[in-house]
């Protein structure tokens, strides 16, 4: 289920503005990779290029290649819709569909795509996805209630359940805990630890403790100044990044001396 991501010399533009320049890295399957760096350095932008979500923003475009198990996401004739079915995404703010119940939210990936599913299959998928997101025990008695009635942390786990219900190969998380309290954060971090067994996970975070807790490898992004493109400064094992980084800027950032 889980796949390797290989990025070669990727540039991201917003219209004429070069937002991210020259990123090359390889993300191993069944691992957690954290992107850290100051605000505006292009972490989220880069993350979005991994499932072509940046295309939702008018004027955004990409140069270079992103290979998922050898298939170029930006090759000719690639359908972004198909890419997004393989590469799921969880956003910074929990965003359950307000018109749908908890159950419908989990099934959204199926129903929104007009796929038919028998009642028992659907029940099974709802239960397994919610189990996978550590939410089943909290919501099993109120599956028909609106998803927006849950607490923030539960909503975020609902969104994760929704993302894994379409069984993607890769799961992208854009600061999934930044709007949550420490206990919900812990719940989600435990969840990431478990999801790692099946998925390739890429997580953007501002919280360096979180990066050191959950990730196997860490990528540090930085910008030289406003208006300059963001660059990948260093990419290494999380331990190395946090204990003996090879670049001075990384050490300054992880030790809190700037940024």
């Amino acid at each position, binding site marked *: 289920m889980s796949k390797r991501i290989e990025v070669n010399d990727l540039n991201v533009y917003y219209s004429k503005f070069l937002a991210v320049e020259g990123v090359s890295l390889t993300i191993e399957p069944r691992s957690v990779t954290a992107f850290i760096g100051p605000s505006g350095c292009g972490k989220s932008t880069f993350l979005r290029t991994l499932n072509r979500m940046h295309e939702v923003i008018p004027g955004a475009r990409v140069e270079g290649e992103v290979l998922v198990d050898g298939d170029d996401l930006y090759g000719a004739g690639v359908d972004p819709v198909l890419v*997004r*079915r393989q590469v799921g*995404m969880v956003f910074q703010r929990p*965003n359950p*569909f307000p*018109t749908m*119940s908890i159950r419908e939210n989990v099934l959204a*990936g199926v129903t*929104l795509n007009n796929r038919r599913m028998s009642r028992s299959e659907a029940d099974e998928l709802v239960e397994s996805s919610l189990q996978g997101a550590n939410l089943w025990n909290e919501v099993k008695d109120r599956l028909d*209630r609106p998803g927006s009635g849950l607490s923030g942390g539960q909503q975020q786990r609902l969104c994760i359940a929704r993302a894994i219900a379409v069984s993607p190969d890769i799961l992208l998380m854009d600061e999934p805990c930044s709007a949550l309290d420490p206990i919900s954060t812990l719940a989600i971090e435990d969840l990431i630890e478990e999801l790692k067994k099946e998925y390739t996970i890429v997580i953007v975070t501002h919280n360096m403790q979180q990066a050191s807790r959950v990730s196997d490898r860490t990528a540090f992004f930085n910008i030289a100044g406003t208006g300059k493109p963001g660059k990948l400064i260093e990419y290494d094992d999380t331990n190395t990044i946090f204990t003996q980084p090879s670049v001075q800027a990384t050490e300054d950032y992880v030790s809190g001396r700037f940024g």
Partner: protein
Amino acid sequence: MSQLTAPPKTDAPAGAMPNSYATGRLPRFVPWTILGGSFIIMIAVFALFASADPEGGFNAPGTVFLSVVLYGIVIYFVARMIEGPRRAKDRLVTTLVTLAFVIALLPLVSLLSTVVLNGTARLDVTFFTNSMRNVVGEGGGALHAITGTLLMTGAAAIISIPIGLLTSIYLVEYGRGRLAQAITFFVDVMTGIPSIVAGLFAYTLFVIIFGPGIRLGIAGAIALAVLMIPVVVRSSEEMLRLVPNELREAAFALGVPKWLVVLKVVLPTSIAGLTTGIMLSISRVIGETAPLLVAAGYTNNMNYDLLEGRMQSLPVFVYSSYVSQGTEAQAYLDRAWTGALTLILIVMALNLLARFIARAFSPKLSR
């Protein structure tokens, strides 16, 4: 109006220190006393005027208005002396805001009460079961006008809701650059079209096809649609823009194609606002007189067929009953008022329906 400025309750036990935050306030009864006092003074003043000039009679609106003005002045100075300038200004502005609200409401209440009082005289079964065919004096009804209005407005809605809705979806979800800007500009221009021009447009359109003098229900419907489309586009556009982008992104991230995102996420989320907007646009055109007079003409007869012959509508019925009063003027006037009342009732029913639909479809937020 003193409720907003009422001092908080001080439940201090007897003998205890008074709450220092609650001192220096006017007791709660003072504003009401001043209001009552200024009413008594003004009633006395206007009664004097009335007795000096019996022809003029007692001026009730003037009394109310000047009483409130007097109250505003008195409460300002009283509060300034006891409570200080900040509270005084607060009380003055509260008075002004309330006064503005009452003034804004007065014409509406006056209009409604006039229509109800004058319209109930003929609000009987005959009015809703008869047309005006072969009626010269009393009796007769507006069934032909009611059906005409419903048919033409319904046809206009059927034409303009899909066009307007799809246009707004294009503008919000797909439109980029020149074309979208041009559409927005022309929609704005269309919003400003005088309704008679829309009527003339529909009339000339049908003259080209059928020759001069043609009057058809469908022509009236097209005239109304021309007026309705920009309103639908504008209101739906606003509603669709209110749908958070996060929801679209959430759906995209699940690998849902764009058209399904629009159909299954954006539209259901905004359905309440869309219905309200559409109902408001119907209310906007249902009272149009001029374009219908030009395009659909005027008749005393029942006509169910949009594609054949002239068609009466309620506004035109009211207008023509008023301008061409027959031998018994009062009968015509009564019918005109009842027609107006019926129109108001129809619009009100539509708005209630819109409320109901909006409530039934709005996103569920309860726990």
